[in-house]
């Protein structure tokens, strides 16, 4: 191409070259030219959110469901700062998104100009990388690099700050085909010698456990993981981020581990002699008291990010590389080398694990008169055959979703795991529905969290996105109340929550509102929602003082869990 193009045109061309079809955004003064260019871009569909935080979360949900990079576009100043929570959440969960922020003209930068903020400075600690583009001749390259960095290695959010004069300038652009950053070279291929060592350690174990995380989902390694675990019959647990990486209906599945993990998973890890951590990062919500986490285990740790390895827990066999690559190698080694039927070798261990499972399965006390929140999630699971795309808000709703929706497939759960940002689930669901137009997408929500981004109701209505919201309405900031209930003698400070009439609210937005107050109403409400090809809010009035169990109190060992 030898034609002169404006910054705005180059921007659009770059997006198309990256395969971007959808962007979530909100306009403003400094991005007027980009929005003007948008009118001439039939191939790029812009979804106008109602708050920029939602644009970032929607891009995140889009990325998780589709495996592509999610894109958000906002104006400078408040538009940019509004995205920070969404960026931080994507950062903590390693989700590839690129956020474009407008910036005041380069001549004004540093002058406290109208709607100027140093968004590159603000987001430096919560992006994988970020850029201020000062020269239009760097624009195409920078955008290409931004997408490359977002999706490669350990993925993450990248922010590109675009001053107005750069967007308005014009040049004859060069679109780079390839990216070579001399200072950035993620290791994908796991060291075969380390992999061999790991396998030897695993085969000589007496009580092995697989502990898997979001890395399985991000590297598309669910199949390889399942093949490996099934070949050896190793019991599997995963973090919140890893759910769906191993089928929730497999006999070797122990459930999630950690603070609200199952008794079985936590006991198995505590007693394991070899722990195989794959794409997980030994987060404090998983380990509890660190010194008592897997105290008897030799640890194999596979992760693409070297800084995750031996960060919290010292590891015996570190393997830096892509989870899928490492698991593929393990599977190949197993094929080459006939091994004994491990169910007989590990028979006793597998029996013990099964006993733990039977002793304290995930459960709740049924009530004939009030709806139990767990029952709602169970019914959602049953009526969607476990096939829906589930997003969650944060709090009890999130944990019940994780516990009772038995995820069979990867990329079906989108939740703000690391940051725990209330208000994530609904805009994320919007993003998921954009990526998967024909899928059932349900935000399992709390009455508190849903109010943090409820304004997006109108976005889903406007765009005919038939997202379903299932509010587990306990009239509380339930998870905080649970801590007050258990550890602060029930002094419910600032946790009783008054909510609007969600049915009327849905209707006001032009969506459908349904309510259930009794257990027998749950199923009909869900069925009606699933049969409604429009956005629906389901308001389930659930038991107000229900607690998420099991629970490992903060700072305690994971074996010291409260069970009821």
């Amino acid at each position, binding site marked *: 191409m030898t034609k002169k193009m404006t910054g705005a045109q180059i921007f659009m061309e770059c997006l198309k070259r990256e395969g971007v079809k959808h962007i979530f955004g909100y306009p403003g003064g400094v991005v007027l030219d980009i929005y003007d260019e948008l009118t001439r871009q039939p191939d790029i569909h812009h979804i106008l959110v109602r708050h920029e935080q939602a644009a970032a979360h929607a891009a995140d949900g889009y990325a998780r469901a589709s495996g592509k990079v999610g894109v958000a576009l906002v104006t400078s100043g408040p538009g940019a700062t509004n995205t920070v929570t969404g960026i931080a959440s994507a950062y903590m969960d390693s989700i590839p998104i690129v956020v474009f922020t407008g910036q005041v003209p380069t001549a004004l930068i540093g002058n406290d100009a109208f709607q100027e903020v140093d968004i*590159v*400075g603000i987001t*430096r*600690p919560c992006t*994988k*990388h970020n850029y*201020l583009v000062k020269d239009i001749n760097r624009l195409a390259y920078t955008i290409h690099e931004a997408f490359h*960095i977002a999706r490669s290695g350990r993925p993450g959010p990248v922010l590109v700050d675009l001053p107005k004069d750069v967007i308005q300038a014009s040049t004859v652009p060069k679109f780079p085909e390839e990216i070579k*950053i*001399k*200072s*950035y070279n993620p290791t994908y291929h796991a060291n075969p010698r380390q992999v061999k060592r790991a396998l030897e350690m695993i085969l000589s174990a007496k009580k092995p456990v697989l502990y898997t995380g979001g890395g399985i989902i991000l590297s598309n390694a669910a199949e390889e993981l399942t093949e490996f675990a099934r070949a050896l019959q190793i019991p599997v647990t995963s973090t919140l981020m890893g759910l769906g990486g191993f089928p929730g209906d497999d006999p070797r599945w122990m459930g999630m581990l950690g603070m609200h993990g199952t008794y079985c998973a936590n006991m198995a890890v505590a007693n394991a002699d070899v722990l195989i951590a794959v794409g997980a990062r030994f987060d404090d919500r998983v380990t509890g008291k660190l010194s008592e986490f897997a105290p008897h285990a030799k640890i194999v740790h596979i992760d693409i*990010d*070297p*800084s995750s390895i*031996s*960060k919290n827990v*010292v590891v015996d066999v570190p393997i830096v590389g892509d989870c899928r690559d490492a698991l593929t190698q393990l599977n190949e080694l197993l094929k080459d080398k006939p091994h004994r039927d491990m169910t007989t070798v590990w028979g006793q261990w597998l029996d013990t694990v099964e006993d733990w499972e039977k002793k304290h399965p995930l459960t709740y006390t049924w009530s004939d008169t009030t709806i139990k929140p767990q029952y709602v999630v169970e019914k959602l699971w049953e009526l969607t055959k476990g096939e829906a795309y589930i997003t969650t808000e944060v709090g009890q709703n999130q944990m019940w979703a994780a516990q009772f929706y038995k995820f069979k497939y990867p990329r079906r759960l989108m939740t703000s795991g690391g940051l725990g940002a209330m208000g994530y689930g609904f805009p994320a669901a919007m993003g998921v529905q954009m990526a998967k137009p024909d899928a059932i997408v349900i935000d399992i929500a709390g009455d508190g969290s849903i109010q943090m981004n409820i304004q997006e109701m109108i976005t889903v209505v406007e765009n005919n996105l038939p997202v379903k919201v299932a509010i587990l309405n306990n009239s509380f900031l339930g998870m905080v109340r649970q801590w007050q209930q258990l550890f602060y003698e029930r002094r419910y400070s600032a946790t009783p929550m008054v909510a609007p009439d969600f049915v009327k609210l849905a209707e006001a937005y032009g969506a459908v509102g349904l309510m259930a107050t009794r257990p027998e109403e749950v199923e009909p409400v869900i069925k009606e929602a699933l049969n409604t090809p429009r956005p629906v809010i389901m308001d389930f009035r659930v038991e107000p003082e229900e607690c998420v169990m099991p629970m490992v109190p903060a700072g305690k060992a994971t074996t010291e869990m409260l069970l009821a």
Partner: protein
Amino acid sequence: MEPRHTISVWVENIPGVLSRVTGLFSGRGFNIESLCVAETMDPEVSRITLVTSGDEQIIEQIIKQLRKLINTIRVVDLSELDHVEREMALVTIKAEDKSRAEVLRIADIFRCRVVDVSPSTYTLEITGNHEKLEAVLGLLKLHGILDVVRSGALAIQRSKKE
């Protein structure tokens, strides 16, 4: 006291890189005792020498986190290698009457250079490793230090001697 480590970091010489490095230290609660930065022979590359302290696991994290920065080209923990380290201080000392001779004697013994003189003061340039600077400044303190400025450490790996 946890062991000191002198770490060399080669980074791309572009705006904002230094704040990525320092932000990493403040954000993760690592400490920086000193920091020196300047361009290398390749104008596209800067070299940072930083001194930090921590146990083995912390130093390992520091190095890994530094490597993780997109603009970082290379990270070397010089403390693991045979290396030469230098710091510099400029110090103005009260020197009147008989202490004038004494200050000069100290300067001489430690091979400091006198870079400024007034009837009642000397300004010395001291170079050496960390311990030497501490020792000289300790002695000079007895005469009354009026002003002092210190650089961070610079360090370079020793060449292999065949």
